[in-house]
Each structure stands twice: as structure tokens, then as C-alpha cells.
């Protein structure tokens, strides 16, 4: 950029190229393995040139893993998580950063703490709540001796069950807070002086400013939701109709530890599961990169 450093540049290029190869080669290995027959896939080392059995391996696992239904379920729940999270995170952080009220820091900490205890850590009781979401309110009413019986609202085997617990975390809120804190005070002052209320300030000034932030968060959230594994495994008991794509991978490995799976079909299933989020992250990545690169001025 500034000075001429041919040796350092060459070293940089070599490191970057080698790391690119190391990071991307597993994808090719999965693809190549998915295209071999059973004998070829078990050769050591496996030939990296793809074989001609990709289609039949895919067709076999498509039926075995019920991927027609599973992909639709994954897609719907992932979109819901993405939209819900981006929206909630931005309005919550907006309130915490741009409003003045006593409980502000308390609210921030109350939400920030959730970042530290992800779903997986408190999986057992969260599962119990999902079996009837109104339990907390019912127990509070009981405790206050108010005799109102709330209806049961069971989230097992539903989209809200897949989605809501994933939205109830702080990742996005924290990110938005960090970003809003970098917005200069003068901007809010100027907006206020021009007669803009809080919602107008949020909609017309903060939203356009945070567009690249939003794109990054949305991409991350979609992939995050698509890649959920443990929670769907628990909340979905009706695997025939509500299974998500990642859950189906469990059906590709044998129960016992040490026994190898049938590698070519297992890798074909892997290919089906990893392709949608890979495509999304490739497409949305252009958006993120375009938004993030600060051009030299």
C-alpha cells in the first residue's frame, strides 16, 4: 500500500494461499467422497478425483433422510429466527443506548447475561418450559393465589418451539449496542433539533446507518438457525413431519462408537445439509463485504 516490500509480499501471498487451500479442501473431500461407490470411498488415501456415483448416493439418502420435508422445515424456521432476531435486537439496543431511564443498565445486563448461558447449557429446564410455555405465568399466578387457569400451550413439534428459544438470546443485541455506541452524539442532537422523534430517528437515520450491520447479522443468524442441532433434536419428537435437515445427520452414523458409517452416503447427506447455508453465506457475503469495506478517501 505505502512502501515496496517484495519479500514480505511474497511471504504474505504464500501464507494466504496455503491457508485458503487448507480451509477449503474439506469441502472438496466431502464432495469427492459423496461421488464414489462403497469400495472406492474406503481406499486410503481416497482418490480426490470425483467418481460417477454422486446421483445415486444423493437419491439414496434423500429417501433415507426424508430430506424433502426436512429442508422445508429448516428453511421456514431459519427465516423466522433471522427476521425475529434482527428486529428484536435492533429495537432493544435502540432503547438501551438512546433512551435515558434508570433501569437501562439493568435491562442491558439482564439481556447481556443470556449471552453467557446459551440454550445448550440450560437445555433440560428449557425443554420443560417448551412443553408448556405458560407454566411460568401459571406458577406466578398460583403463587399470588390468583385462581386463573391458563390454557396449556405446548411448543413441542411446532415452529414457535423451534424458533422462540433461539431468538431469546443476546448475540444481536450486544452487536447492535456496540454499533449504536459508535454513532456520534451530534447525530442524535441534530436529529432532535430538526424535530425528529425517537422512532423517526431510528427509522430514517439509524436504520440506513446500520444496513451493513443488519446484513451481517442476518447472514449470521440464518446460518446459526439452520445449523441448530441439539435443540431441534429435543423439541421435535415427531421426526416424520417436523425433522430439520441437520438432525438427519444423526441417522447417518451408527449408534456405537468406533464403527465407521457408510462413508459415501453419509457424505452425500452431508452435502445436502451443508449446501443451503453455504450458498446463502456465499451470496450474502458479497453484501456484507460491500457494506463493510471502507473505501480509501
Amino acid at each position, binding site marked *: 500500500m505505502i512502501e515496496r516490500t517484495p519479500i514480505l509480499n511474497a511471504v504474505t501471498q504464500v501464507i494466504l494461499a496455503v491457508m485458503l487451500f487448507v480451509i477449503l479442501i474439506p469441502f472438496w473431500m466431502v464432495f469427492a467422497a459423496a461421488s464414489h461407490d462403497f469400495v472406492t470411498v474406503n481406499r486410503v488415501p481416497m482418490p480426490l478425483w470425483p467418481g460417477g456415483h454422486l446421483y445415486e448416493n444423493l437419491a439414496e439418502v434423500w429417501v433415507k433422510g426424508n430430506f424433502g420435508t426436512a429442508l422445508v422445515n429448516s428453511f421456514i424456521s431459519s427465516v423466522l429466527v433471522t427476521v425475529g432476531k434482527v428486529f428484536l435486537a435492533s429495537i432493544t439496543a435502540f432503547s438501551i443506548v438512546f433512551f435515558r431511564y434508570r433501569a437501562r443498565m439493568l435491562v442491558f445486563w439482564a439481556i447481556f447475561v443470556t449471552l453467557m448461558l446459551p440454550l445448550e447449557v440450560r437445555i433440560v429446564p428449557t425443554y420443560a418450559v417448551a412443553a408448556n410455555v405458560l407454566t411460568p405465568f401459571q406458577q406466578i399466578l398460583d403463587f399470588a393465589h390468583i385462581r386463573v387457569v391458563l390454557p396449556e400451550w405446548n411448543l413441542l413439534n411446532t415452529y414457535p418451539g423451534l424458533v422462540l428459544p433461539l431468538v431469546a438470546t443476546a448475540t444481536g443485541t450486544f452487536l447492535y449496542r456496540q454499533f449504536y455506541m459508535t454513532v456520534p452524539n451530534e447525530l442524535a442532537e441534530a436529529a432532535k433539533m430538526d424535530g425528529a422523534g425517537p422512532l423517526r430517528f431510528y427509522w430514517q437515520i439509524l436504520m440506513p446507518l446500520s444496513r451493513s450491520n443488519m446484513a451481517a447479522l442476518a447472514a449470521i443468524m440464518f446460518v446459526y438457525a439452520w445449523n441448530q442441532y*441439539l435443540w431441534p433434536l429435543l423439541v421435535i419428537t415427531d421426526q416424520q413431519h417436523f425433522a430439520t435437515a441437520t438432525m438427519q445427520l444423526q441417522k447417518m452414523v451408527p449408534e456405537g462408537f*468406533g464403527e465407521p458409517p457408510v462413508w459415501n452416503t453419509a457424505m452425500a447427506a452431508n452435502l445436502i445439509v*451443508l449446501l443451503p447455508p453455504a450458498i446463502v453465506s456465499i451470496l450474502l457475503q458479497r453484501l456484507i463485504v460491500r457494506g463493510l469495506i471502507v473505501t480509501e478517501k
Partner: protein
Amino acid sequence: MTRHAAFTNIWLATLLVLPQLLLVFVFFYWPTAEALYWAFTLEQPFGGSNQWVGLLNFTTVFRDPKYWNSVTVSVIFALATTALILAVSLGLALLVDRRLPGHQIYSFGYFIPYAMAAPAAGLAFRFIFSPNAGFVAAINTWFPNLWNPATDGVDAMILIILCQAWKSIGYSFVFFLAALQSIPRPLLEASAMDGAGILRRMRDVQVPLVMPTLFFLIIINLTDSFVDSFGIVDITTHGGPARATDLMVYKIYFDGFKAQDYSLAAAESIVLMVLVVGLTFIQFRYIERRVHYT
């Protein structure tokens, strides 16, 4: 964090935070409180309400060497993955940020593994690093039994660390690169004028300026190593061999849902919660003071 021009409409402020607070209450605080309740009680064998047993569940947990093994394994895993991920991704971001020819291709490629689900990455790595198929098995033809994650605990640990690191580098990389790119170029040009070479600029200008991002990423990666690892462990090692990769979350899941011992799983959850919250709290107090938000 105080702003002179802050809005004061308390009703609107409340309305804006209410949905998230409600969700957090139902799906976070209530379950956490429930875990506390379960941790101090035992289910009656023939139904009825739980019986208060004080610290019994905790003493059971702490007397269990299998539990301490799980703690040790998790800490090793968390530290190793976080250090590996941050070192590699910061290094790559610094190099890509030099904007030599082809830097866009690199930044594009490095991000792609992030799209992998933990179980998908686990399955891929289990194949690639399998002792008798795939690629790394070739080592065994030269040095028999050198590599076997199915029987050797250290190998199994290396396998899941590599898998977790591979999967997470792209995420940290993107954040580091964004932070580096937001550093004003004139700042770097000025330090170059003052005689700072490329490596010196990285150390004294660029790295200090991405400290907020580093702070964010340390927390995210440590947490992720506890969370996301379930999928990897469940697909690759099932916590084995001989509990060498029996991470805490995997053990909680196993004790809670497979062994159906809610009280034991709850006590284990509480310990993990205290550990993680304490760590973060210290980190937040300690690091944020040394970090300046530009």
C-alpha cells in the same frame, strides 16, 4: 454511555425492550430458576412434589471423578480452540487487510466454513481423520497405529479441536477484517511516515485498534466452544474414547435425557452456569476498561 441528546419517552423505551425481555424471561430466566430448583431437590420415586435435599446433588457431582474429567476436558477444549481461532483469524485478517492482489478471493474463501453446521463439520472431519478410511489414515500405513481417534483420547481431542477451529475461523475472521478496514487509512500512512514498518504498524496501530472486536470474539468463541461442540462430539466421538472428549454440555445432555436424572443434570448445569458467568463477569470488568471504543 450517557448521551446528552438521549430521548426520554419512558413508555416507548419500555415498549421497545418489552418483547425481548418477555422472551428472555420465559426461555432464559425461568428455566435457569427451574434448574436451581431441581439442583437442590430430588424427584420422588413414586411421583409427588420434589423433596428438598440441600447440597446432596452437588456433593454427588463433585465426588464423581467423571465429572472432574468432564470439566478438565472442557477447559482444555475451550482454551485451545479460542486461542487457535483468534490467532489464526487475526493473523489472516491482518494479512488480507494489506490488500495485495487477490485479497478479495481470500477473504471470500476463509468465510465459507462458517456455514457448516457443527454435526456436518463433525461428520466431514470424522471421515477425513478416520483411522481406516479417508486421508489422514495414510499416516497409519507408514506408522501403524500412530493416529486413531477411536481409541486414543488425545487424538480424539485433537480431532474435535481442529474441527471446532476450522468451523469458527471464518466468523472471527470476518469480524477482525471489518474492524481492520474501519481503521482510517491516513492513520496507517502517518505511522508509515514516522518510520513504522508493516509489522510494527500491525503490532502498535492495527491490533490495539481492533481490541473491542477481540473482546467480543473471546467471549463468543469461549461460549461457542461450550455450545456448538455438542454437535461435533455427538457425531464424531460420543464423548469417547474412555470419556476423553466428554465435554460438559454433552455430559449434561447425557445425564439429563439419556439417564433421565434431571436433578444431577441440573446440578451440573448450575456449576457450568456459575463458571461461565463468573469468567465473563471478570473478563468484562477487566477487559472493557482497557478497550476503547473508537
